């Protein structure tokens, strides 16, 4: 890593630590009680103290998020391939996908909780929000194949299958990965929202349920501790998917190339 890259990585970390220090200082100077605003040190202490409760909940939420993301990826790619086969299919099915996308998941979650078990409802919510960005991005990628390359494949009488494997799927990879990056973050939000709805009715065991539960007990430091874990999970999911995307695209796609070269 070059000096400038270190600087790039350290500046946001420095600002973050500075913010935490300011937060800590304000809480201590003003003697703000922990049930109003806990200091970062109190949140960290709570995180350690309650780890036997919070970490299993984190595992539940992350498990659902990843299951939903995998299911959404498989479903969205399959549907995008189907839609790319025919304009009619696209016209017939796309409005349904859009309706699902624009309807707030918080409004769907209570309904799903009536029809499904809480675990399944959480999974379906996370699936629904992750599905659309992957679908629309993959469909866009499949439709944006270079015309010159299409001519080359036509010239050599490529079959539909050969065009799909050697041309359309690799061409759509950058957009697909952008969709998965967005979908990964949204799957976590979907899971949390559904857990909140489920938690409000006294069911569930995920992180959001711990927030609801701690809220009832006015255990604000534990709420913050759970929130910190959710944020860290979101960052980890995004980071992992961004790294995967970089790994797959760095050799050839402009979006993943190092601009300092």
């Amino acid at each position, binding site marked *: 890593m070059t000096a400038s890259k270190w600087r790039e990585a350290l500046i946001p970390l420095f600002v973050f630590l500075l913010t935490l220090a300011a937060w800590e200082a304000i809480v201590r100077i003003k003697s703000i009680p922990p049930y109003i605003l806990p200091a970062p040190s109190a949140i960290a202490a709570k995180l350690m103290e309650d780890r036997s409760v919070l970490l299993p909940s984190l595992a539940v939420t992350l498990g659902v998020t990843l299951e939903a993301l995998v299911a959404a990826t498989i479903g969205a790619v399959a549907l995008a391939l189907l839609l790319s086969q025919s304009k009619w299919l696209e016209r017939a099915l796309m409005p349904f996908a859009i309706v699902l996308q624009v309807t707030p998941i918080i409004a769907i979650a209570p309904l799903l909780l009536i029809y499904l078990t809480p675990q399944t409802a959480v999974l379906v919510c996370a699936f629904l929000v992750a599905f659309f960005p992957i679908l629309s991005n993959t469909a866009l990628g499949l439709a944006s194949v270079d015309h010159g390359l299409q001519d080359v494949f036509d*010239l050599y009488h490529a079959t539909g299958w050969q065009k799909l494997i*050697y*041309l359309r799927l*690799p061409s759509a990879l950058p957009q697909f990965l952008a969709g998965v990056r967005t979908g990964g973050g949204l799957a976590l939000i979907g899971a949390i929202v559904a857990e909140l709805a489920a938690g409000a009715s006294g069911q569930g065991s995920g992180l959001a349920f711990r927030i609801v539960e701690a809220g009832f007990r006015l255990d604000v430091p534990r709420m913050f501790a759970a929130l910190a874990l959710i944020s860290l999970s979101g960052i980890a999911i995004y980071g992992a998917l961004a790294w995967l995307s970089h790994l797959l695209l760095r*050799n*050839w*796609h402009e979006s993943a190339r190092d601009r300092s070269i």
Partner: protein
Amino acid sequence: MTYDEPLISLQQVGKTYDNGHVAIEGFDLNVRSGETLTLLGPSGCGKSTVLRLIAGLASPTSGRIVWSSPERRKNLGVVFQEPTLMPWASVFDNVYLPLRLAGASRDSAGPQVRQALRQVGLSDFADALPRELSGGMKMRCAIARALATVPNVILMDEPFAALDEVTRFRLNDELLELQLELKATIVFVTHSVFESAYLSSRIVVMSRRKGEKIDEIAIDPGLQRTADFRHTPTFADICRRASLALREATDQQIGYAEI
């Protein structure tokens, strides 16, 4: 070498696109076996459309295209104005593509791919990705892909138009050397008078008036095409004649626009 046998015959060929744009109309052309035929003309005269029609990438809306042997039609190489390489695939895989699409395994196609890479001087770059190549090398890779199937007919649509002059001259020389080795029939589209005079055994100057030919210049196939050829009076004569014809075609284009 004889150029008598018409390998491809375009008879009263017309192409009107779906949006109503008439690209070409009532166009006649014979391409003879073994010749390097250049279609020279101003932008929009339909020369690229003629090439696409011959390649089978578009169908004529009127007239017909007759091949002397259907077998030859199957073995075409085309080089487009852009290199049109797969950015995610290595130079080897890009050149291997036509053979892969024909069902050849990587191992069995290896010698043919390496031969094509050798012919264009890219043997040392088989594992490179397109982004690692210069503009001229990318075009060489596209030419190697067209050569991979050892085609009888090579169609080239302004392949060197986007390159700098030094690179273009070098690739012109390399193309002439390749032609000596391959003895293929080449149909070359360009708007460069010098390129057409240097490479061709025959130049057809197309008019903006659809289907009309301004001039047809036959060039002695026995002429030595080396770098010195560019400085000979014969070359200057061919250029002068092609220039005048192109000017006439361009003037027509202006007249066309004024109406």
